[in-house]
């Protein structure tokens, strides 16, 4: 397949194209600086840059930094260089200012751009929108899903600010578990007398090496799994705000969404701009409001992410109403599997706030024996009230 993008003959040159590609990557959420553009150009000189496959590999090594980015990269590369997924876009000639060197810095590229009628080879404002002739911007996906819900419509910034408070309190309640025991540590606040004397034997009784000890924090990490299936849509506002608040207030927390798929949203939610974070999350939550496969989603979580991120010092928060389309045995096995990692499991069910609610749904009934805490949560106030109970876990 050689559908290499055609650039107009008036196009200023390969360096500008590479910086355009970098802007394209930045638009799609990769965090790249000016140095990477320079490095990319250097790298392209080291290989046969006319071979798309080689260029792809070289740029991949430079522009990606984690597995998710590496997986995303091929589609992004294709959309820019291989004419796939391209929204119609023109490259307008920009006046060459200071020779080839100018394109090494995005600041210069921006400068060039300022007078022009919008070009795709350079990022413009700080918001990262690549301006073309108003015809849209490059997207990596091949088809835009019109059914996709923009979560920004659901969540208001005030909610997030409030949720942040709640999340901070909850996080503090979980985290402030202090131990009485002191353990040896290089940067401890007290001398570990016994070890120091013991070590001094090797140096003829002179305590040369001072061993220290400290009282360790026993932090608990929150891992939140939020159900965003159809039946949960009405509660999404509270829960999404809570997740956003949680991620902003607690740097160790981890968050996932599930409906029929499981998506890790931790990275997206850590974006400094809250509303942009929610926007990025809506892109990932493709399928929002669809069916719910709670058991399989938790099973997938237990088999994949949990191995890396969940241990005995984790508290897994599941935010769901428990209406599962999969057989209850799956849920049972999944939670048993998750529990084996030594974590605490808290289930927050919005329905439990209703009078006369009983967990009779098969999925919920199967889940109950595995839970450390099963509580209602309809509003942020409910979540805020949790901190005392959570502290005693």
């Amino acid at each position, binding site marked *: 397949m050689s559908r290499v993008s055609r650039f107009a003959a008036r196009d200023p040159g390969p360096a500008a194209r590479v910086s355009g590609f970098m802007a394209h990557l930045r638009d799609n959420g990769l965090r790249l600086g000016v*140095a990477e553009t320079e490095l990319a150009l250097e790298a392209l000189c080291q290989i046969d840059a006319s071979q798309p496959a080689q260029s792809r590999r070289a740029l991949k090594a430079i522009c990606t930094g984690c597995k998710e980015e590496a997986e995303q990269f091929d589609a992004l590369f294709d959309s820019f260089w291989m004419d796939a997924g391209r929204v119609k876009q023109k490259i307008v000639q920009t006046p060459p200012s200071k020779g080839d060197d100018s394109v090494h810095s995005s600041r210069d590229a921006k400068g060039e751009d300022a007078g022009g009628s919008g070009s795709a080879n350079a990022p413009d404002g700080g918001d990262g929108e690549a301006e073309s002739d108003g015809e849209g911007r490059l997207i990596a996906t091949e088809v835009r899903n019109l059914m996709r819900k923009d979560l920004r419509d659901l969540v208001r910034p005030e909610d997030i600010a409030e949720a942040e408070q709640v999340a901070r309190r909850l996080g503090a309640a979980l985290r402030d578990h202090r131990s009485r025991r002191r353990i040896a540590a290089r940067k401890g606040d007290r001398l570990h007398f016994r070890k120091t004397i013991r070590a001094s034997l090797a140096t003829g009784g002179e305590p040369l090496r001072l061993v220290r000890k400290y009282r360790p924090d026993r932090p608990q990490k929150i891992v939140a799994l939020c159900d965003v299936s159809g039946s949960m849509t009405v509660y999404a506002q509270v829960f999404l705000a809570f997740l956003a608040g949680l991620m902003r207030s607690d740097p160790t927390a981890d968050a996932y969404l599930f409906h029929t798929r499981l998506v890790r949203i931790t990275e997206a939610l850590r974006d400094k701009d809250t509303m942009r974070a929610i926007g990025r999350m809506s892109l990932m939550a493709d399928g929002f409001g669809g069916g719910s496969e709670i058991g399989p989603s938790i099973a997938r979580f237990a088999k994949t992410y949990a191995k890396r991120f969940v241990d005995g010092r984790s508290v897994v928060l599941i935010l769901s109403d428990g209406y599962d389309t999969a057989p209850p045995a799956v849920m049972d096995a999944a939670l048993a599997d998750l529990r084996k990692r030594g974590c605490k499991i808290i289930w927050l069910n919005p329905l439990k706030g209703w009078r006369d609610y009983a967990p009779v749904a098969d999925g919920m009934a199967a889940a109950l024996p595995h839970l450390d805490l099963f509580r209602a949560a309809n509003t942020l106030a409910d979540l805020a009230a949790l901190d005392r109970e959570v502290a005693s876990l």
Partner: protein
Amino acid sequence: MTWTDLQTDLAADGYVASDDLTVALHLALTLERPLLLEGAAGVGKTQLAAGLAALRDTRLIRLQCYEGLDAAQAIYEWNYQRQLLTIRAAAEDGETGKSVEARIFSRDFLLERPLLAAITQDTPPVLLIDEIDRADEEFEAYLLEILSEFQITIPELGTVTATTTPIVILTSNGTRDLSDALRRRCLYAYVDYPDRATELAILNARCPGIEARLGAQIVGFVQKLREEELEKVPGIAETLDFAAALMGLGIADLTSDPAALQHTLSTLLKTQSDRAHITPEVAGRIAGRAA
């Protein structure tokens, strides 16, 4: 040297690298940048550093990271015992404090740990910083200076600047998210489980005597096994162990002796629940499909 040459040379030394990985390694060598390798356990990340050191005929300096690893264990340490003995000896000879002090804080009394050793070699060594995700964040931050400047400051001696730039390879299993600062200083490659052809090539390179039919069966079996729901997915090292076990037992066909196959599975399955999951019937079925 182009990247294809590099790939051929590595293969000649017994390391079969994918195209993606070779290009990343090639760039790391030519641009003198550290290379960060991520991927599941047992896909050959550490082995790449060993292979590269063998290829370049240079020293492999390995720093195994763990929780609580600190500068003294990774960079340098003063040889306290020797310093103490020298002070005692000097006191008996009636030497003055100043000259003793100058003597005991010299290079002779410095114990080089991996990072200092790596930047003071005459020929550029391969520095392997293994499982960086296990080290604390503070240590990771400390590493940033060394990785970008290749110099180490020792308060009593001054700054030691690298005589040669080591080839740095970092590996990570993804147990913790690494900082953006570290990722930005490195080139990146994600190492995945090899596809069937690559794994067969690795097997042939490592076990030259293996029969073609058995080799294909082994690789087919392990590839199918990776699709099962396992707690610990077998890596390449496990495949090689499996092959060695089968050859040691003189088995020439996986389907011929189910009991022997079940015994050799201990090289591939490393947890109790995985053993329970892959019953003789399941193993037989997978072997049948792989054959």
